């Protein structure tokens, strides 16, 4: 039965054998009963009338296929619409790395102001009779955390939307030590170092060292991490670790731990190390440690605690190291003028070359690298008398990191600190 004709004959025989040449009893009667109840349709209501008969089934199939395509297309359109709506809303920048510079939020005279990326068009965002300051944009650029003083003794850690609405207290009654509000890369957590005051006004932790607190921004809760004394906490780029400095008698140097307080361990054996800052790729940590004449030098260490290197070694003290958004450079202030003012310098991590940014002496607060890495923002006291950084500076300086153009100097009397909003590229 291998020949085609054999199979054809077999099939014919099979069909002939299977055919009965008569219909089962009742079939015709049942069909005609149905016919009796069914009215005929006008010809124009059938596809056969409008199309060649051979096309009708294909049209029916095409209709089903068109229906399927239409449903799929509709779903795609809905998804596209949602994507467009989301896109036209507020696309978020990546949590780490370069981003587009947005507004600058700054503390001026105890209130919080918002300004254009060039420092102009300053408008008051939040403030009142009490002091508010140290405003810091979240990495996604949607929120601002800040400190608010309710009385002379304590401050609260608060957060609000980037437009100044919905201010919420995260942690009340704190004595925030470092004035650094450090957002986690995913913008969901804030780490600070502080002491908490008890109801009687006395310090609950009456020690010279602060403890590290972590606040859950979304749920408005906070936690004291493992009773750890420390300062200058810094999140790792993946948000899984915190690096910080310790200066107590039994623990001195740079430490790391998980955000829940577990896995606490020293990172560097250099005594007095502190002010750690994580590189954007998470591989390195730059930090300060006392050197010649007890002035701080800049150090670098692998995030796993190996390959420690000293980057600067001079009579002047370095302060406020900060990584460029692309992770290729570290900016810091080399303090002059008895430590009251200094010059901004940038170290190329690859070749260790250092350039000085020309234009002005800067003062004693943390500079800010613009999200696109093109500028550094800092605070300047232009009056000839001794700077009083407690009362505030008088000028916002925006430095070109290539020295190709002179810094933009914006007069802002009463300026303290500032933060640059990151926007999606």
């Amino acid at each position, binding site marked *: 039965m291998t020949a085609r004709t054999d199979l054809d004959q077999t099939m014919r*025989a*099979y069909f002939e054998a*299977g055919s009965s040449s008569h*219909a089962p009893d009742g*079939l015709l009667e049942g069909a005609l009963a149905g016919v009796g109840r069914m009215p*005929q349709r006008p010809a124009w209501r059938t596809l056969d*009338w409008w199309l060649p*008969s051979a096309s009708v089934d294909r049209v029916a199939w095409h209709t089903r296929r068109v229906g399927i395509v239409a449903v799929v297309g509709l779903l795609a359109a809905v998804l596209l619409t949602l994507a467009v709506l989301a896109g036209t809303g507020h696309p978020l920048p990546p949590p780490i790395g370069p981003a587009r510079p947005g507004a600058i939020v700054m503390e001026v005279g105890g209130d919080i102001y918002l300004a254009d990326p060039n420092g102009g068009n300053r408008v008051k965002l939040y403030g009142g009779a009490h002091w508010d300051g140290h405003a810091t944009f979240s990495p996604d650029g949607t929120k601002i955390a800040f400190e608010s003083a309710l009385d002379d003794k304590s401050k609260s850690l608060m957060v609000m939307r980037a437009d100044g609405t919905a201010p919420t207290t995260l942690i009340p009654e704190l004595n925030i030590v470092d004035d650094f509000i450090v957002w986690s890369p995913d913008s969901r957590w804030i780490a600070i170092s502080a002491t908490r005051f008890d109801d009687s006004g006395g310090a609950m932790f009456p020690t010279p060292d602060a403890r590290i607190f972590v606040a859950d921004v979304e749920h408005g809760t906070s936690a004291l991490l493992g009773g750890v004394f420390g300062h200058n906490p810094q999140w790792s780029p993946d948000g899984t670790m915190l690096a910080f400095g310790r200066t107590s008698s039994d623990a001195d140097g740079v430490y790391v731990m998980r955000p829940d307080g577990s896995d606490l361990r020293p990172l560097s054996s250099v005594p007095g190390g502190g002010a750690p800052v994580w590189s954007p790729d998470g591989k390195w940590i730059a930090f300060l440690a006392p050197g010649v004449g007890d002035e701080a030098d800049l150090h670098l260490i692998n995030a796993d605690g190996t390959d420690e290197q000293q980057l600067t070694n001079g009579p002047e003290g370095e302060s406020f190291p900060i990584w460029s958004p692309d992770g290729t450079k570290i900016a810091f202030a080399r303090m002059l003028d008895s430590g009251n003012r200094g010059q901004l310098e940038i170290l190329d991590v690859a070749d260790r070359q250092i350039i000085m940014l020309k234009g002005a002496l800067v003062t004693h607060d943390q500079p800010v690298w613009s999200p696109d890495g093109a500028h550094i923002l800092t605070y300047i006291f232009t009056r000839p008398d001794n700077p009083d950084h407690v009362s505030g500076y008088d000028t916002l300086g925006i430095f070109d990191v290539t020295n190709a153009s002179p810094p933009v100097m914006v007069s802002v009397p009463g300026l303290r600190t500032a933060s640059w909003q990151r926007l999606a590229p």
Partner: protein
Amino acid sequence: MQRDLVERAQRGDRDAFGRLAEQSVARLFDVAQLMLRDSDLAKDAVQEALILAWRDLRALRDPDRFTAWLHRILVRCVYRAASLERRQAAVRALDVGGDRPVADSGRALEDRDEVDRGFRRLKPELRAALVVHHYLGLTHEEAAEVLGVPVGTVKSRLNRATSAMRAELQAEARGRERMATETIR
């Protein structure tokens, strides 16, 4: 004669349509039963086809094409019944009991059982192609009209169906030879 009945039926004459149905019903049932291999499903398909044919008869432009047109409606009803059946009891398609070919003797009966097993394993579209081509004796073009697909699709389905049947029969033959060898040993 048939043309006259069709034209009368198109004008709403139920008796004329009854005559047409009477002339066609046995053939329709055979076709449906061969395609579906289930007499109950075949009866349902035929009843539905006749009722739909009556409903849409006025759209038939050429009364001489009535039989082909009616078979096309039947094929649609068979597909619908097969689809429903697949959803309700997929396993039953492999059940070789039930509607068997008429009794025969010896080798012929054995061959027909093998063909029956192979045929039941085919998809309804392939079974329909074999039935309209081998049972109704339609050409590829006529089969295309009845099945509502292009001629190329008819050829393709016939080729796939016969290949599958041939493979099935060859496998059965190899099994028989193996059993015979083991029996001799």
